[in-house]
């Protein structure tokens, strides 16, 4: 994460004279407080995941074990959920990348009198809270036969970040000079080939954001899964986690450890994408305003 921090501050360390000790102390005291607040829950999570008798307070288990991780696979069918989630997230990502490339490019190049109205309308859609659409999406998906189906999950997850990503891609394509593609049309390329071979490579950061964001949103999103899936075989990771969390343990036992282990596996791909492409992701998430 440190590189991202540097990228954002960007100004280098030497603009002001050296700090006095008192200032150093005050700033670092603030840092300790802030870090404690933001990291404490994660400390607990890691302790609990490796503790078979995890409780709610932060401590490192006296006998760390992988049993919680084993149990989520043997007792909670987590393997099925992982498989479903990987499939749905990757398929969503592919669909989104193709869709927003085409749409962003077309929107950038199309000649209409009220083009800005379309852009405006798309951004308006982006602000629609997902939680407000839970009830109607349920009804709609039921009528379209999209509940308990991969297709339904993929289409709906693809749509969630679509308005923002179309708008984002349009911006990238706007900055690609038209002369480039027009020249390649003269060389005999079709418009689609020109888009793929000439224009898209220039919009690579946008594609990266689209791919990363759509993958993460499909991976992490739970509201839609709650209302779309009720069959065991169609369960994805967020739903498996949601259900395990709401049903901690049996009916006479609370089991934090198992859920903590699930949380870690749920969190890992998110961390991986962030560590791999932090600047793009921060930029993408920031402008989508929705978060995960």
């Amino acid at each position, binding site marked *: *994460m*440190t590189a*991202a*921090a540097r990228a*954002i*501050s*960007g*100004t280098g*360390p030497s603009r002001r004279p050296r700090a006095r000790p008192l*200032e150093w102390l005050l700033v*670092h005291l603030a*840092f300790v407080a*802030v870090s404690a607040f*933001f*990291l404490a*829950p994660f400390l*607990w*999570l890691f302790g609990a995941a490796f503790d078979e008798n995890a*409780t*709610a*307070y*932060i401590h490192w288990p006296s006998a760390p074990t992988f049993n919680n991780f084993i149990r989520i696979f043997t007792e909670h069918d987590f393997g099925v959920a992982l498989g479903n989630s990987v499939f749905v997230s990757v398929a969503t990502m592919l669909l989104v990348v*193709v869709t927003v490339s085409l*749409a962003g490019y*077309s*929107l950038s*190049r*199309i*000649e209409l009198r009220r083009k800005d109205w379309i852009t405006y309308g798309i951004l308006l*859609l982006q*602000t*629609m*809270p997902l*939680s*407000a*659409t*839970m*009830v*109607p*999406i349920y009804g*709609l998906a039921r009528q379209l036969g999209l509940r308990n189906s991969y297709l339904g999950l993929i289409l*709906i997850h*693809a*749509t969630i970040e679509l308005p923002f990503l179309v708008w984002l891609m349009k911006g990238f394509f706007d900055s690609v000079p038209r002369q480039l593609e027009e020249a390649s049309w003269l060389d005999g390329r079709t418009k689609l080939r020109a888009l793929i071979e000439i224009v898209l490579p220039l919009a690579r950061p946008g594609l990266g954001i689209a791919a990363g964001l759509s993958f993460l949103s499909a991976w*992490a999103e*739970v*509201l839609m899964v709650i*209302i779309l899936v009720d069959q065991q075989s169609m369960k994805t990771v*967020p739903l498996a*986690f*949601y259900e395990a*969390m709401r049903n901690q343990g049996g009916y006479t036992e609370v089991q934090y450890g198992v*859920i*903590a282990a699930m949380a870690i596996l749920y*969190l890992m791909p998110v*961390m991986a994408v962030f560590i791999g492409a932090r600047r793009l*992701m921060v930029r993408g998430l*920031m402008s989508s*305003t929705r*978060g995960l």
Partner: protein
Amino acid sequence: MTVAGAGAIGPRSTGLGRTLKRNRLYFAGLTPAALLLAVFFVGPALWALGSSFTNRALVGIDAANPRFVGLDNYTRLFGDPDFGRVIVNSIVFVVGSAIIGQFILGLGLALLIDHAQQRGFRAANFVYAAVLLAWVDPTLIAGFLWVAMFDFYYGSLNVALSVFGLGPVNWFGQAPMLAVIIANVWRGTAFTMLIFLGALRTVPGDVYEAARVDGASAWRRFWDHTLPMLRPIAALTLLSITMSTFGTFIVIQTLTNGGPSFQTEVIALYAYHEAFQAHEVGYGSTIAVAMLVLNLAFAVFYLRWSRARA
């Protein structure tokens, strides 16, 4: 109607037919996205509107024979004392969580980290990463983590308080709204921090130099120079986090599920509870419509403002 130049490329066309023809490939390129948006964004809004005029239910007689009930659901909504509470809760939550919590903490953190980075304090990067970590983790996990933090008997917060001889505090019993606000601030602060860190970068250094030559104190420099430069972006950030906080669902559901007794029930949760727990999909849809209308008002305001700035 409009007679424009006959040039090959121009913003004006001489008719719908020609526009369509010239742009047909672009229209084709827009089609998949347009279809998805129409079905899954516009469709639900229309479906909710339609259902809000029915007594559609998940179980019981009304599930077998849903009827058109006219404005019954809307009459009920405006006479529903619980809905009034839900609106008030939503406002308190948004003000506490977005406007006071995330905004002020985010701005403070941005200033702190920016300042520390300029001083060359390496720990700044660590703090930056810590704040970001809370932001990128899925909402569900955030909820789960704070359920444990707030736990009355063994929760880390109460254990920490007991070290100082305080507590234990029954967070969800005595201060449920504060508890859900804390959790949401924890999760959402990074957004504001990132925006302001970006904005601070654009404050030119010579402004400070000039001010320092004038002998202005750090506080004055901040008040007279930094803050005015941040103001336009601040307004937009506020609106943006207000909208995303307005739709918050999972964090509250996992922490208190709206309780105790509606004290943290916000509008998104209420729609869900009425539709899927009371099984009244018609009434739940009515609440969803109300939510969409409120959000639309916010969003139009937001977009007009941001476009005016741009």
